[in-house]
Structure formats: C-alpha cells, structure tokens
C-alpha cells in the first residue's frame, strides 16, 4: 500500500535518524550504491544499532543489500537478520539471485528489475517465494541498453508496461524508477503520472523533497474517494451482489476496489 519508497544512504546518521520525518510511506535504507566499499561495515553497524534501538510503527523500512555477486551479500544478510524490517530490496535481481537470498533469509523481497535479462524474466521473478513487489530500475537498465533516459519515457515504455502487468497479475506492488533531477518538480510530476497511467501504484525516490508530490499522485483523488464512499454506501443499502449506480453496473470487483480506495484514504489521512 505504500505510495513512496525513499532511498536513504545507509552510512549517513543525519538521514537515518530522521527517516520517519520525511513522510515517505516506505524507506529503503541503502547499503549498495550510496555506501563506499570501505564503509560497508560501518553502514551495517550503524543500521543495526539504529534499528535495534528505535522502532517505527507507521513506516515500512526496507534495506537494499548488495547484490548476491558482491563481497558484501552474506555479511549484509547476516548482520540484518534479526532486525524488524519489512524486507530486503535486492539489486541486480534475477531468478537465481532471489533463490539464493531465500536460502539464507525468509524476509520479504522487493527485486529491482534493472537489466534487460531481468526484464525478459520478469514473470518468473514475480512468481518467486517472498517477492512482494517489483521495483523498476531505469538508470541501470538504460545504461545496459546504451540508450538515453528521457522525461517522455518512450524508451522505457515497454519495460514499465510489462513490469506493471506482471506485478498486477501476481498481485504484487509495482514501484516505478526514481526521478533523478531532484530540483525539477514539474518533471517529477510528469514522470510519476506516466508511471501511474501504466499501472504503477508507487514510485521510488532519491530525495525527501520529492515525497509530497509522489504521495499526492499515488493517493486516491478526492473524486475517487467520494465515489468509493457512494459505492460502499449503496452496496450496504441494497444488500445485492450487483447493482446500478449512475447508470453504471457495479459488481463485486468494483466494490472490492472501492473498499481498497477507502482503506488507502484512511491510512493516508485523506
């Protein structure tokens, strides 16, 4: 149900101790790209000490561990095994990598689909045990294809579509790639709407100032909420499995969707 997934660097105390202040629905504490090779151990210890001492009820905390091919994978998993986190974010995900992770951990997994091969295998990945969402990593993906990433997003249209479709089919969350121009609010809105319109229900972010925009875009609108309320009200009144509202046929799937909208609205205090 999270709308926003904010990456914060795992070796930066100032960010870690404010992780609940940023109002992101979910936080991904990063041990991979934002932490220097010689400080991986420092980051692990920092996160371990922080999450052992402090608990956060409302916010979902994930840790992006290093890829299974790195020297840090097993240390990352071992040192975070006892922490009360919502799961791991697995970079450079592949079916093999997920299986490897599941051998040493039973935490939930959000694989990052960030290579052409991963994209081709996205359905297999979605089926793997413990996978709860798919996160699209467009930066690495476009780098591998040797193409340029644009705001218009035509070059990642297929990738986004197939990920959203696979996620939906296997009842996973679909998390879009971060928008890396942190001062460009208009660009962020466009990029987020492009993802939403393809079926993504959340977006990853790299800067706290992006949270408000993302949360608004991926939250149900006032109109949606009002309509959901009407549907639920009528469904409670008619006690029928299907009924008509404003000339439209309302049946069980639509009622379920309306319930989810109201659930989200309640959670996000809308």
């Amino acid at each position, binding site marked *: 149900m999270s709308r926003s997934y904010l990456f914060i660097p795992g070796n*930066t*105390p*100032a960010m870690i*101790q404010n992780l609940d202040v940023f109002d992101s629905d979910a936080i991904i504490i990063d041990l991979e790209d934002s932490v220097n090779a010689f400080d991986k151990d*420092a980051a692990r*210890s920092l996160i371990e*000490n922080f999450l052992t001492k402090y608990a956060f009820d409302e916010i979902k905390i994930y840790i992006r561990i290093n890829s299974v091919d790195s020297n840090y994978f097993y240390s990352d998993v071992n040192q975070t095994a006892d922490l009360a986190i919502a799961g791991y974010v697995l970079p450079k995900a592949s079916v093999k990598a997920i299986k490897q992770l599941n051998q040493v951990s039973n935490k939930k997994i959000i694989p990052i689909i960030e290579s052409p091969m991963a994209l081709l295998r996205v359905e297999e990945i979605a089926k793997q045990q413990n996978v709860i969402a798919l996160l699209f990593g467009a930066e690495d993906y476009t780098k591998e294809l040797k193409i340029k990433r644009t705001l218009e997003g035509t070059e990642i249209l297929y990738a986004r579509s197939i990920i959203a479709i696979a996620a939906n089919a296997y009842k996973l969350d679909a998390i879009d790639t971060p928008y890396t121009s942190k001062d460009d609010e208009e660009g962020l809105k466009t990029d987020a709407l492009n993802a939403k319109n393809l079926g993504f229900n959340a977006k990853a972010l790299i800067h706290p100032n992006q949270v408000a925009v993302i949360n608004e875009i991926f939250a149900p609108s006032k109109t949606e909420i009002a309509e959901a309320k009407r549907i639920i009200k009528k469904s409670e009144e008619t006690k029928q499995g299907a009924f008509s509202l404003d000339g439209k046929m309302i049946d069980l799937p639509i009622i379920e969707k309306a319930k989810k909208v109201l659930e989200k609205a309640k959670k996000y205090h809308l």
Partner: protein
Amino acid sequence: MKVSAGSLESSDCLITLSPSKELKITIESSVFDQFGDQIHEVILETLKANNLFEIAVVCLDKGALDYTIKARMETAIKRMRENNE
C-alpha cells in the same frame, strides 16, 4: 597502528583507536558541555563489552547520537581486530 571509523559530517563522529598501555578516552565535541559525560559513558561501555582496556580512543564528535557513537566504536574495533589478523 591507528584505525578509524565514522566521519566529521554533521550528526556523525570520527573514532580513532590506537594501542596504549592504559585506557585513555579523548573527546572533542561541539556539545561537550551538555553531552561530554554521556559520550564518555557510551565509549567506555562499548570498550567493556569488547573486553578492551589497553587502548586509546579519540572521538571527534559533531553532535552524534548514542547509537552512532556505539556503531562507529564497534566498526573501529572490528577493523582493528581484522588488521591484527
């Protein structure tokens, strides 16, 4: 042989360990008046938990919270032990 962990960024601290005949803790902090004793306590507790007494600790603090000081201490100790292997 000196070993370090942490940084001088805001809310962090830089811990440097070196062998010493006796236990010595030196703290430089922007909040020394308010938290000097507390920082000393955290460093001492971490040394005790790791059975380290013949050691000199220098802590350059930029307003780090207790969990950070403990984490940086643990990392420095781990690095020191890895160096000695």
